[in-house]
């Protein structure tokens, strides 16, 4: 059996592969007997690690936690010569214990208040951006590569792309805040965006020079929240800039697009993105994998298996996964992540593994009939 790393890199290079790669993201993976069993049966492991460290100049960052008065809440304050901004985070139990910022339930901290609450905050955050320096630090990637060996791929993880930093992190969507700010304070939004675009140029170069084969924007893209106007104006240029740097060094650019992508499909086709990472087919997304493969003939899909199917149990997973395989014959340019969102139960993980471990390429109707029989035999 070829090593997982060889298979998934061969697919990126456009070389033929003999089986459909499937893998778990480390941060969503339960470590234990089921995970070991799945990996022994061909499941790879992918890791996201940063290629950089961040240094703030002339900006003070302090964190306040008062467990008696505000349990679970952490206030992070940034102080600059132009003033201060702060955000409150709610951290569920488990944060810092296991998967970094993720809780025992695999939930990242909720931002209860955002850095940018009103118009005046834009200037302060822009100051922070303009005084942020990125430096290469490849140890985390090298360490994970050494640990994984041929069992997996390490991805150089970038922060959200410039507008997503505003939409997801700094302004947020609560109450539609970002859209309202974008309508009312367009000049401020655009100035901060442009500052980030400028600041990120060095980051792209750092990521491109890293030992990782793939560079990832973890953008959580959704075509309903990020409409075509926004995508064209604010997302494509940074993707093009990053891809240029990454491609110069023989690497690949991936973007985490786990939402509804149908509205953006023609624009996505125009981008130089190599890997559409985390695309979710219906019922969570709105673009079938077969259609995505047809519309993006030069891109590889690292699909995220839909969590809503997992909620219906292993038999629903069996039916959905077999139908999925039948829909993507012959199965080129597709890898499947067991989850890009949440933890997966052992029963669901093993059911999906039982199907995907036998997904030899090219997929054929007869081959999938054989997989179905194999799974039925296991159940019997």
């Amino acid at each position, binding site marked *: 059996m070829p090593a997982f790393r060889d298979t998934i890199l061969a697919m990126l290079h456009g070389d033929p592969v003999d089986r459909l790669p499937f893998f778990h993201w480390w941060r969503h993976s339960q470590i234990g007997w089921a995970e070991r069993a799945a990996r022994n049966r061909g499941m790879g492991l992918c890791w996201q690690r940063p290629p950089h460290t961040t240094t703030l100049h002339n900006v003070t960052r302090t964190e306040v936690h008062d467990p008696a008065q505000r349990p679970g809440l952490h206030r992070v304050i940034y102080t600059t010569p132009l003033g201060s901004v702060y955000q409150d985070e709610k951290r569920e139990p488990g944060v810092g214990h296991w998967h970094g910022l993720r809780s025992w339930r695999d939930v990242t901290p909720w931002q209860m208040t955002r850095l940018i609450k009103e118009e005046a905050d834009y200037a302060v955050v822009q100051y922070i951006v303009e005084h942020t320096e990125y430096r290469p630090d490849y140890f985390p990637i090298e360490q994970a590569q050494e640990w994984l060996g041929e069992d997996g791929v390490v991805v150089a993880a970038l922060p959200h792309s410039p507008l997503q930093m505003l939409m997801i992190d700094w302004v947020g969507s609560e*109450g539609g805040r970002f859209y309202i700010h974008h309508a009312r304070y367009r000049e401020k939004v655009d100035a901060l965006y442009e500052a980030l675009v400028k600041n990120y140029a060095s980051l792209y170069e750092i990521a491109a020079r890293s030992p990782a084969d793939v560079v990832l924007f973890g953008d959580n893209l959704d075509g309903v929240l990020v409409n075509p106007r926004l995508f064209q104006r604010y997302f494509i240029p940074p993707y093009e800039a990053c891809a240029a740097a990454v491609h110069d060094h023989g690497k690949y650019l991936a973007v985490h697009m786990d939402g509804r992508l149908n509205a953006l499909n023609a624009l996505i086709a125009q981008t130089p993105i190599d890997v559409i990472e985390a695309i979710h087919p219906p019922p969570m997304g709105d673009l079938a994998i077969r259609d995505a493969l047809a519309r993006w003939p030069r891109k590889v899909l690292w699909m995220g298996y839909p969590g809503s199917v997992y909620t*219906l149990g292993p038999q629903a997973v069996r039916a959905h996964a077999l139908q999925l395989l039948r829909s993507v014959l012959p199965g080129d340019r597709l890898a499947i992540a067991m989850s890009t969102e949440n933890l997966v139960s052992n029963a669901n993980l093993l059911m999906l593994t039982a199907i995907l471990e036998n997904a030899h390429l090219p997929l054929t109707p007869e081959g999938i009939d054989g997989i179905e029989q194999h799974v039925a035999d296991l159940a019997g």
Partner: protein
Amino acid sequence: MEHTYVLWVLPMSTPEILEDLKNDIVSLDFDRVVRDAHRAVDAGIDPLRAIVEGMAAGMDVVGEKFERGEYFLSDLVVAGAVMKEGLAIITPHLTEGWARRLGTVVMATVEGDYHDIGKNIVTTLLLARGFEVIDLGTDVPTATIVDAVRQQAPHIVGLSALITVTMPKMGEVIAALADAGLRDRVKVIVGGTPVTDDFATAIGADHRAADAVEGVAQCVAWMTPLRER
């Protein structure tokens, strides 16, 4: 030769002001809606009429444009925010609540989930259609929702969840309503990206909203007697 110009400012008619209010919503114009809401008040236009035939009519157009793909979700959000600016000026002049003509809806994002963008759009559209909306917010415990149904006697309960780990809370709410003997008194509509028809059926919801506009249309349908549809 010297010319003298005389500028006549004609008072705007009620239909013109109502049309302007409607257009302010459609064009997502924060500044103009404030100006025209003041004009409506100064002209002595019935506040209810200014809301229903002006701004709410504009929200209807925005909803139609959204359904046709001309407007996006961001436009729905901004239109709602623009309408709020206008409402802030006009509603103090109302003699009684206007948003009670069609029915009452309790809205909540279920416990453990802080997403609110979808819930807020639905709330705005429901208001525009004449519903009274009791918005319980985000991360709402099941018991709080049940208490609200018991005390407020709404016609409809709207539940939102955006992540799969919180979706089961929707089923918990429906079961708790049944346990409290309240399930038969309300329609329950659920929504959120990961929520599917199969899931909605499995937990016993009455409807799964495909999007905000469709969900509000379903609420209107529930509350509109057959003969009026």
